[in-house]
């Protein structure tokens, strides 16, 4: 059962191998045409200057030099970091808490899970528009809710200090997607571990801290990596809410929006590619760092510490 049946049943004939390549050939072609090729092209373009009209010009490291001196690049990188640093941890904590809450046996739990999951499928232009309305400073529901608690709500998307927190709040509406992943993870935690902990007199907090969290860490780890990859690519919400500008005062100018401006508005293809590589590099550094520190906190089954 545990070994791959393909390797047991089938002989490694060259005939069969050929058929294997035939079947994966669409992906290989796609890989060359739409992934590998473009990655190389993008790397080459990052060292060139090209507006799609005049001939390509090799400029060496000029694009990267320009990038270092480009204040807006640093602003957009900072904005992207800001969003990621708040949206990802809050999203993960939020989705774990909701998953714990949904890991119940109430009759209505199915309906509840549906409700929590629903917003994550509406992600896009429409939900950005809904949130523009919710964030309306004078008549939006959020400031109305705050006013009921005696707080005067900020201008949100119209205030450069509050536009990024608004994006983070909006991102939390989508925690349902990750909740499902954690719910599956929670249901895979063996009962015996909880029972053992209870015999040792552990309360809810101890069970959470010493059983649930360690058992979930592989899921959290994978989810963390993918969440960061995605949150660095935030674009649609910002584009919709700010009319493609990243305002007010560049406070929501995120990296992908900045890349979009250079590639598809100004047609500075070389510089846009350099920016895209900067984004890729940042993502890779983050991912690499996580793999590096993963050993310290990610537990795999059989090495559960008490």
């Amino acid at each position, binding site marked *: 059962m545990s070994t791959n049946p393909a390797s047991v049943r089938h002989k490694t004939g060259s005939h069969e191998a050929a058929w294997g390549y035939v079947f994966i050939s669409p992906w290989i072609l796609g890989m060359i045409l739409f992934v590998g090729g473009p990655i190389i092209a993008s790397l080459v373009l990052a060292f060139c200057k090209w507006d799609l009209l005049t001939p390509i010009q090799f400029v060496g490291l000029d694009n990267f030099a320009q990038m270092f001196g480009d204040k807006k690049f640093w602003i957009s990188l900072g904005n992207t970091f800001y969003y990621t640093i708040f949206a990802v941890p809050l999203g993960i904590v939020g989705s774990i808490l909701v998953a714990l809450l949904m890991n119940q046996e109430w009759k209505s739990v199915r309906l509840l899970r549906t409700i929590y999951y629903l*917003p994550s499928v509406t992600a896009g*232009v429409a939900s950005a528009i809904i949130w523009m309305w919710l964030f309306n400073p004078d008549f939006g529901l959020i400031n109305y809710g705050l006013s009921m608690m005696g707080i005067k709500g900020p201008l949100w998307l119209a205030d450069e200090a509050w536009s990024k927190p608004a994006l983070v709040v909006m991102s939390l509406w989508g925690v349902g997607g990750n909740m499902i992943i954690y719910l599956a993870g929670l249901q895979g935690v063996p009962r015996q571990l*909880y029972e053992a902990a209870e015999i040792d007199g552990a309360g809810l907090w101890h069970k959470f801290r010493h059983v649930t969290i360690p058992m979930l860490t592989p899921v959290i780890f994978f989810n963390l990596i993918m969440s960061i990859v995605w949150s660095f690519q935030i674009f649609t919400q910002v584009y919709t809410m700010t009319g493609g500008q990243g305002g007010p005062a560049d406070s929501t100018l995120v990296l992908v929006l900045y890349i979009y401006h250079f590639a598809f508005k100004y047609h500075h293809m070389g510089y846009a590619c350099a920016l895209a590589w900067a984004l890729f590099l940042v993502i890779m550094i983050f991912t690499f760092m996580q793999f590096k520190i993963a050993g310290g906190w990610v537990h795999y089954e059989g090495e559960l510490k008490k």
Partner: protein
Amino acid sequence: MEQQQNSFWASKKKQDKMVSLVLYLIAWTGALIFVIPLVWMVSTSLKYPTDIFTTPPKWLPISNIQWKADSTVRSQQAGYVKLAKGANGTQVIYLMSSTKRTAKVVDTMKLSGAAKLNVEKGVYVKEGDIVAELPKTGVARVNGNIIMITDKDGNIIDTIETPPNSKIKVNTGDRVNENDRVAVIPPQWHNYMEAWSPKALSETFTTYLLNTIFITVCGLLGTMLSSAFVAYGFSRFKFPYRDQLFLVMVSTMMIPAQVTMIPTFILFKYIGWIDTFAPLIVPTFFGGGAFNIFLMRQFFMTIPYELDDAAKIDGCNYFQIFWLILMPLVKPALVTIAIFGFVYNWNDFMNPLIYLNSSSKYTLALGLQTFTTMYGSYYHLMMAASTIVLLPILIVFFFGQKYFIEGVATSGLKG
């Protein structure tokens, strides 16, 4: 999903009743907060414009129109000849003798028959004094969407103009008192008509919808066929570098689309595919995305190989095994992919934004974004348009939520 007794909250001991109740309340409060944005969207989409910008907000898209009798006519500023205007259009002219703050009324003139004068010649008035009063009860006279309220002699006290499609709740001859409900503004379904064919845009949502359906259907076809095809190769054959290639495929999920986006755009530009649907459809036939191949491959692995062998003995070739034997068996995985693919295509914004230029080619997401640039302050129309765009997704979600949840749980990825 809910196979065994859950174990975190309580395993041996019975869960504390109080704890359970508190958690239940928290769960429902949270759920309420999560649906509010959608409820609010639908509610706003059905409102009459003046009911949108209110404090406190109105939850239901139904509102009563009351007769707000503004009955007092106050002296405004002392002067030689002053016209005091009542809020309901009643006018009283009074003349005063002095420019001081207190003035003597030297003459009065009644312009509206319904108003009752409170001052007479010779008295002194100061700013803010009530110089005339209108009755607080009257008789309704309905004319189309206009309700006139008159006194018993037929003099007009007030005129209420109700929105064209509101339901008038009084008849001609009915007695109306201050704060009485005279009409109801029902849900404004025609907002949807207005949003569907916006006057400020050259295209209607019919165009966007048809374009989106076309792209989605073709994209799904490509994704389902090619991801199953490739997954069949990865799961059923042994060939050199298979596992390495599979690893490469899975790791491409971490490459941000922006890195490949620009050269891919240039490629399509040179083929002449800009402003066509091809860049949105054709790539799906080349594997259909790492996530989908991964999901399909996991599913293929669960199907016993004896089936393949039996088919082979019966003389099937690999294509026949794939198409006739295995495809029918992986339907659940195909449905999962179809549902995720549907949501992805429906919501996709960046690709249509880059590749589609003419508004007749726009997808719903792109059309909706353009809509907001023209109707940014018309929240009822923006919400109606958003509802139009979201409704198909919500429908698909409710019918296919089982597949969503299983798909996410098995792959560990969200859509």
